[in-house]
């Protein structure tokens, strides 16, 4: 698959910001792995957290059945249930809103689209750039954590479960990125695109967290992609429970992207 000039220009444009994000995630992943030693084996910590309200525990990513001090419980609560998918999603939402809607908002698509290029090509080259940037960024903390896990006593979590937990976070971030990109292509407004992505991400996160403690919200929790992926507990159960969530997320992402592309090919660009 050749990238195309718009793909290449997008990568070049985002290169510097990507490096900063990569450094930040690299450092964070090292800190997460390196800090496990401080909680490992401290049974009193588990007891402490048993006393705090359920709602708070859930918001902190503490799973009822996973000891906070176990490698899986630690990684889940500190990394996979919140931090990593949140950071990757924020990056994805930022890039996805910039590369198409942001360019249009800034008036830079006008001359581009007056060239003999199809709008579908512009849409697709920018979309592929956003996905590639996110996927490459994802690899930085993922590879770091997998490589460091044995050295920091996190090796109890098997490679398959660890990679499944990573896969779930990437899927979440890709979904939020796709929604942002699709809405941006539809609306041509960066702010609208970011709001859509942030709403799905933040709303989904809150719903998943609160539904675990609120019986009122509980019936609605299937609406949250976070519930699909995080409550599937890939860090314990591996890839198998991720199949259905992945299909659902792929369908939702595809719907957002296809709808955005459909509209982008037909609507006015930069209308006064």
């Amino acid at each position, binding site marked *: 698959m050749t990238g195309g*000039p*718009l793909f290449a*220009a997008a990568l*070049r*444009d985002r290169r510097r910001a990507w490096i900063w994000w990569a450094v930040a995630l690299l450092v964070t992943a090292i800190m997460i792995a390196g800090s496990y030693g401080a909680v490992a084996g401290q049974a009193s910590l588990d007891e402490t957290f048993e006393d705090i309200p359920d709602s708070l525990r859930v918001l902190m990513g503490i799973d009822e059945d996973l000891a906070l001090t176990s490698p899986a419980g630690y990684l889940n609560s500190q990394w996979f249930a919140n931090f990593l998918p949140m950071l990757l999603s924020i990056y994805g939402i930022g890039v996805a809103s910039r590369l198409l809607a942001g360019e249009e908002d*800034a*008036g*830079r698509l*006008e*001359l*581009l*689209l*007056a*060239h*003999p*290029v*199809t709008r579908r090509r512009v849409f697709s080259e920018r979309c592929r750039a956003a996905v590639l940037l996110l996927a490459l960024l994802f690899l930085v903390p993922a590879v770091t954590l997998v490589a460091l896990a044995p050295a920091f006593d996190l090796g109890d979590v098997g490679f398959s479960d660890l990679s499944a937990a990573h896969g779930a976070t990437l899927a979440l971030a890709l979904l939020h990125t796709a929604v942002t990109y699709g809405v941006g292509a539809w609306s041509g407004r960066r702010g609208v695109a970011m709001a859509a992505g942030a709403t799905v991400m933040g709303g989904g996160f809150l719903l998943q967290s609160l539904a675990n403690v609120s019986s009122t919200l509980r019936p609605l929790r299937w609406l949250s992609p976070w519930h699909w992926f995080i409550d599937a507990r890939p860090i314990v159960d591996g890839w198998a429970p991720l199949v259905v969530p992945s299909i659902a997320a792929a369908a939702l992402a595809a719907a957002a992207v296809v709808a955005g592309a459909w509209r982008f090919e*037909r*609507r*006015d*660009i*930069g*209308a*006064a």
Partner: protein
Amino acid sequence: MTAAIETSALAKHFGAVRAVDGIDLRVDHGEVFGFLGPNGAGKTTTIRMLVGLLQPTGGSASILGADPAEPASRARVAYLPGDLELDPKMTAWQHLELFGALRGAFDDGRARHLCDLLDLPAARPCGELSKGNRQKVGIVQAFMGEADLFVLDEPTSGLDPLQQQLFNDLMAQAKARGAAIFLSSHVLPEVERVADRIGIIRAGALVAVTTIDELRRAARQRLTITLDAPPIADLGVVPGVVEHAVDGVEVHVLVEGALQPVLTALKKSSIVRITSHDDDLDDLFMGFYR
């Protein structure tokens, strides 16, 4: 031979706003067409329809015999937007390479030649360029391919007179090899030296298509005539004088048609100087509407 541009009852309504309301236009190959109108008259909306950015809500447009919405029809069309926005982080040259790649052919020798000609610092990021230099990026990208149709929206904004002259030369070369040029402006001097015909758009409608000479004949002139003493004659009764005001030895007049009756009326005074104020387009429009 098909026209370079042909529109038929072309219209664009944004809800209740009739930005463009039924324009019939034909521009031929080898012709420079000046598209004039005050700001907000519908020039840019028309142009955006011609390059496929906006879908008409009525009528039709064709460029080089094809639908502007089809990418292939824009292969031989060069466009310069009125509000050219460039990526502040990309250099001028990177923009030119990108635009060349989108056309499928980048003649870097030609691009380099044009950058040198216009004295454009191509290696600098566009965020560091002055408005005039950014505009040159737009001009180079428009003229670096061998387009058959140029659609230029207020192309010389930000250019100094010398650069305007270079730009006019580029247009003349393109015209000489048979290209059509559609050139919009809100000021007449920008187009009067280069346009074969002009169209005047006002409130979304084409109110006239004419030559510069015809327009001038219909237009009024605003003059300041300096005498050696206050005038004796009453200019209000002179044929063709629409407005007049006397300020000491200076006479301000707005004249329609020939100037001779005014000069005749002032023949008892000694005329020191006549200053002609640029016919601004609003005056031309006013002249047109009477």
